[in-house]
């Protein structure tokens, strides 16, 4: 017996089969607030979802090497662009139900609601080399992030031809999306790296509260939000006239796996931690203020003539006002990848993700300053780094990648 299950929701599949699968049992963290699990975020739109849409609690970020031909790449991108809206709607990958074949959908998300899933695609610099004849489509600012002082990068897992960022309020839903999209590309793409993040460290919405990173501090307090239209237009969305017209409405994603020296940090006196960050740990307020969203007064001087927010504190060095007004849209996640097998130290930190209109003039420019002067960098080591061009969103019926092969 064969049956098309296209259009059947994962929940109705569950009901029909009488199976009980508890996604909650597999959740990596305890939910801290009410989440509308039935919330579905539209895949189609002027911009890709997963950029300015409010960050969900869980991330699965995958990078890929393309090992197939130009035609196969074109086919995989088109397939991904067709499958993604099904996944974000909470539907399985459609298949013929014939038990003599492997199932098209891997099934682990059966019965789970959409959970706010977003799927965001990106193209790495190497996709535009000679292999696929795409060199004329390469944006000039899409270059690998240059080495930054203090980096200890794993070259084998840094960069990549393609990326998929899947975010959801249920970790199983995010993993399911990446796993199934990877299967759809089997033979043409191979996974280069996979990062699971649990616990967002930023917000792009005024409706969300700031969360804490593994250092114990609120993160992303002064991030751009979805309502900052003017700033988003200036600092995040690529203008068609910038360079490659196909990138108009798109953006550039920079991903950095930042391992934090949690053991050393935990042993620092609280006041020293606060001086390194430039904020109070409990309230998240800048050292010059009393509330989290107080604007840091970088000119404030203490009673002894020293700056209230130290000269080498993180928020001073990273502040737009000390970086020529440059903004980044941050969307990072905490990660805990167990222990360093050699030392027994935590292999944990922040999977930093940011979006910008020009990675060279924005992220790279700021990161250089951070490495030179930011006191926090003594506790941070980048172990993976990548940059991707995220094309604009797709209209219904539009193929992902069509702009590259036109």
């Amino acid at each position: 017996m064969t049956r098309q299950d296209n259009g059947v929701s994962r929940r109705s599949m569950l009901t029909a089969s009488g199976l009980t699968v508890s996604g909650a049992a597999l959740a990596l963290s305890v939910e801290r607030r009410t989440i509308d699990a039935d919330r579905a975020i539209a895949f189609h739109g002027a911009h890709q979802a997963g950029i300015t849409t409010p960050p969900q609690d869980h991330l699965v970020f995958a990078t890929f090497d393309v090992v197939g031909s130009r035609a196969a790449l074109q086919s995989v991108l088109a397939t991904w662009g067709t499958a993604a809206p099904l996944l974000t709607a909470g539907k399985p990958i459609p298949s013929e139900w014939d038990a003599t074949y492997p199932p098209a959908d891997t099934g682990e998300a059966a019965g789970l609601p959409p959970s706010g899933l977003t799927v965001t695609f990106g193209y790495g610099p190497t996709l535009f080399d000679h292999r696929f004849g795409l060199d004329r489509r390469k944006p000039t600012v899409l270059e690998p992030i240059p080495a930054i002082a203090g980096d200890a990068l794993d070259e084998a897992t840094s960069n990549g031809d393609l990326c998929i960022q899947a975010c959801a309020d249920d970790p199983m839903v995010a993993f399911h999306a990446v796993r199934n999209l990877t299967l759809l590309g089997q033979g043409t793409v191979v996974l280069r790296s996979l990062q699971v993040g649990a616990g967002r460290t930023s917000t792009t919405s005024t409706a969300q509260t700031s969360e804490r990173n593994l250092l114990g501090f609120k993160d992303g307090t002064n991030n751009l939000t979805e309502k900052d239209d003017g700033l988003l237009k200036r600092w995040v969305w690529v203008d068609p006239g910038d360079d490659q017209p196909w990138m108009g409405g798109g953006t550039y994603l920079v991903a950095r796996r930042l391992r934090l020296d949690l053991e050393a940090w935990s042993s620092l006196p609280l006041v020293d931690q606060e001086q390194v960050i430039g904020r109070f740990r409990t309230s998240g307020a800048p050292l010059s203020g009393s509330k989290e969203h107080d604007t840091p007064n970088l000119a404030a001087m203490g009673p002894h003539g020293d700056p209230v927010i130290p000269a080498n504190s993180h928020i001073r060095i990273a502040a737009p006002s000390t970086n020529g007004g440059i903004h980044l849209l941050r969307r990072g996640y905490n990660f805990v990848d167990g222990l360093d097998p050699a030392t027994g130290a935590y292999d944990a930190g922040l999977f930093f993700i940011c979006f910008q209109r020009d990675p060279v003039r924005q992220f790279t420019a700021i990161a250089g300053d951070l490495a030179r002067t930011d006191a926090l960098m003594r506790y941070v080591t980048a172990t993976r780094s990548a940059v991707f061009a995220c094309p604009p969103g797709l209209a219904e019926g539009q193929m992902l990648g069509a702009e590259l092969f036109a």
Partner: protein
Amino acid sequence: MPVMPLLPSARRRIGWFGVVVVIAATLSSCGGTTTPSTTTVPGVVPTPAEQAATLAATNAYRSQIVNAATSFNTAVRALATDLQQSKTGAAIAAWRVAEQSFDGLRPELSGGPATWSQLSGPVRSDGSGGGLQSVAFGLFHGPTSVAADASPGLVLAGATYAIGVFRTIVQPSTIAAHQVENLGYLVTTCLGGNPEPWSHEQALDVRAVAAGVISASSALIPLARLVVPGPATLLRADLAGLAQAVGELGSDDGVLTSAETRAIATKATILQGVLGQIAGAFAGYSNGRYFA
């Protein structure tokens, strides 16, 4: 008379006691005599013995850092000369001294990783990027021209950064905090990660970093005994534990076994805890001298 900036931890004590009373410190005008501090906050009134112990700790640490900087600069100059004269054996010996000296002065290099990067250099598969890593690539992997090309930059960078190091006066609380960070470097960089990929002389690095921590922290014990006797006892024991674990490496400079790696990492992490406590307890203890 300049006003002594309080160490970060001292501000917490002010908060606890609710009174802000800061007595200005005396800065020796000629720099030749160090005046014990009268800088304090309520609740921290150093006794003469504590002042003497504070002075001893800061002076000992200053000597340690200055000696490391001097040794580094001497070694990289010798290294450059040896490479110019194609004396590879002598250059390797000089590199070893430079490497150990760098480990000794790293915690006090201003600028953090950006400075370390210039002196230590990045690990790249082609040996590019300069610093001690490029020299090691040239000496142990080849060609030696990579080392010869990198050495003049090291000489210049070493001389430049020595200026900052020579002016460094670090107070006991900061000494302890910096050793916490230095132990993190020992665990994540010297023991974990991809240590010394060209020379494979991992133990050389581990011994040098541990020796620096042990020396700096040992000099804090007399003050700790006076201020926080309990943690002082722990500090002494934990330092001995780290010294023993490192001592068991013997004289081999090579790659550590997994058991050796885990043993030293464990001792280092334990030591971080007590040093952090002591860093907090030392808030407000200052020898009264500082350079902005």
